[in-house]
């Protein structure tokens, strides 16, 4: 890194910054309760991140839960708690993973067995053909590619708008930044239902272009960029970067573009990772909007196509298609689980 962060605070948060603390500190750095409570989503994140921070400091003093060491030493308490924990674990496995395991089993079970004995384990053997038929004959491969393509475009738009917007609002700070900031935050209050119809009409007849964007991937990509949560999250992160570094860069003759590309972005990898993963997953989950604007079946993503093919597809093959559609988000979650479980993307989760 060309400009190592000097302030102790930030050097802790930024370079090694595994999502958790970096995001937590950024959000708390933004100000006191009143300004942060302006939006419900932000507040939820704030609440959890504030507490997350507290943990860090109090861990040194020996943090503890409601069961004390003395409690644990009492045999009755120890036995009760351990039993409860085991019961909870079993329930979590059955409820959380059970449906997924069943789906995985169905994906390679002959249809007749699925219908007659859904819970029996391969009474008449395994049928791998479900997966290949789903991938090739039902053309899941095509919709899979559409889904990935839509997710990548939405990811790019969200990152573009959030980073450039955050740069203007947090680093360049022109006089009118406050107005833009207010307008962006205001959209957090507006439920997405309100946007549905007018946004659809905007896509039907977009300004300037003069041609409808229906059946065009841009109809999904462009509105995805208008995520106030991302802009606020990134701007808050930029706020936490040390100003001296920007000043030093300017003294060295860096213009705003250089400052953005070579200084601010490299220092912001943790938050860019958070935004990226959640943008990708949210796009993968999206259903209603792509259904409205992508009417051509060959352009539709999995989420839109799956309900449509449910009726005329062989059950075993259909369930195999469902299993294939689940794979990528689950893998992303398992790889980036710290990001998800730290609460950094709660707003995204709530909104999605």
């Amino acid at each position: 890194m060309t400009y190592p962060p000097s302030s102790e605070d930030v050097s802790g948060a930024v370079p090694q910054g595994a999502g958790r603390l970096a995001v937590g500190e950024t959000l708390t750095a933004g100000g006191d309760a009143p300004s942060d409570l302006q939006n419900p989503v932000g507040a939820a994140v704030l609440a959890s991140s504030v507490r997350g921070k507290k943990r860090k400091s109090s861990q040194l003093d020996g943090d503890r839960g409601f069961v004390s060491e003395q409690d644990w030493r009492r045999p009755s308490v120890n036995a009760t708690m351990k039993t409860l924990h085991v019961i909870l674990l079993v329930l979590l496995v059955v409820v959380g993973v059970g449906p997924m395991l069943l789906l995985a089993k169905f994906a390679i079970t002959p249809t007749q067995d699925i219908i007659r004995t859904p819970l029996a384990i391969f009474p008449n053997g395994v049928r791998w053909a479900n997966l290949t038929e789903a991938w090739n004959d039902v053309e899941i491969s095509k919709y899979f590619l559409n889904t990935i393509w839509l997710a990548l475009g939405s990811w790019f738009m969200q990152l573009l708008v959030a980073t450039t917007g955050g740069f203007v609002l947090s680093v360049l700070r022109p006089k009118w930044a406050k107005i833009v900031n207010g307008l962006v935050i205001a959209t957090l209050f507006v439920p997405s239902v309100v946007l549905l119809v007018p946004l659809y009409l905007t896509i039907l007849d977009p300004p300037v272009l003069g041609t409808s964007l229906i059946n065009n991937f841009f109809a999904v990509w462009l509105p995805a960029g208008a995520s106030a949560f991302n802009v606020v999250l990134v701007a808050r992160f930029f706020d936490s970067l040390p100003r001296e570094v920007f000043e030093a860069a300017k003294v060295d003759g860096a213009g705003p573009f250089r400052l953005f590309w070579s200084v601010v972005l490299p220092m912001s990898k943790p938050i860019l990772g958070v935004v990226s993963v959640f943008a990708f997953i949210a796009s993968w989950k999206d259903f209603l909007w792509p259904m409205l604007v992508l009417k051509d079946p060959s352009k539709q993503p999995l989420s839109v196509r799956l309900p449509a093919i449910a009726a005329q597809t062989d059950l075993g093959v259909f369930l195999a298609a469902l299993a294939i559609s689940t794979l990528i988000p689950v893998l992303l979650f398992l790889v980036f689980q710290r990001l998800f479980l730290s609460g950094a993307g709660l707003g995204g989760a709530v909104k999605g």
Partner: protein
Amino acid sequence: MSAASALPRSGDRSDDVVAVRADGPPPVRRVRRNPVTWVRRGGLSTLVFALPVLVVFGVFSWWPIVRSVVMSFQKTNLVAPATWVGWDNFQYVLTDPDLPTAIRNTLYFALLALVIGFPIPLVAAVLMSSVKRLKGLYSVLAYLPVVVPPVVAVLLWKFFYDGSADGVFNTILGWVGLGPYAWLSSPTLAMPSLVVEATWAAAGGTVIIYLAALIGVPGELYDAAEVDGAGIWRKVWHVTMPQLRGVLFITFILQIIGTVQVFLEPYLFTGGGPANATLTILLMIYNYAFGRSLGGDYGAATALSVMLAAFLAILSLIYFKLTSSWSKS
């Protein structure tokens, strides 16, 4: 803030000085309006950076928000120019015989979601916070359903809810001599079935919020409670729960805001049936605007969504008032 605003300004001043020297002695204000100095001071590049936000939010967020309010007072069929119709759309929606059903169903969904979905994550999170080993495993298992694409989850559960005796849930309940139940095709069971699936899909996120909050409960409070002779149960009830008050309220409001906007489950599970038993407000909005038989009534759709948004705004306001009064005290 102060340090930051000082930064660009220090640069500006030297520019101004140069400009003033070059142009002679006009008042500083006139110099500032000069486009050349504006560009040199970074005005143009700032605008370039602001362009994505301004265009994307302008076209796909701000303008549609304004337009939805405008459209709720208009009649439009996309061919002829829109005409102003005053409160007609609102009147039409409010006298729609389906509206009371939709409101009742939506509130029923929200209520059931609270009854089923509010205690489960709380109990799970409190218990999970006392786990010593494999804590991460517990969180991963709890959160897993949240990452399953909602459409896949609904379609999978639709298969689980199969009404025949060989359906997945009916098979399991059959082991203990219950059922078979009709689930989604039963007017009384349809809504609870949707809520159970929705709870399964969302509870993991709430668990993670509670876990973060539980970690923040100061250990000294537990120490103090023990000095006073409190057992585990009383520590949970008199220390943990009061400490979670704020977060509980946040999730409560967020859950109501979310459940009032429920669409995916009724749309994919039942399409609003049987006999309108799962028709929700969002489904009505969708049907007004895009439904097959009706459809195209954008005025009614926006009128209903504006009313719903107003209701949600009031909720947010209550939430904001309460949380800010708490943070003051």
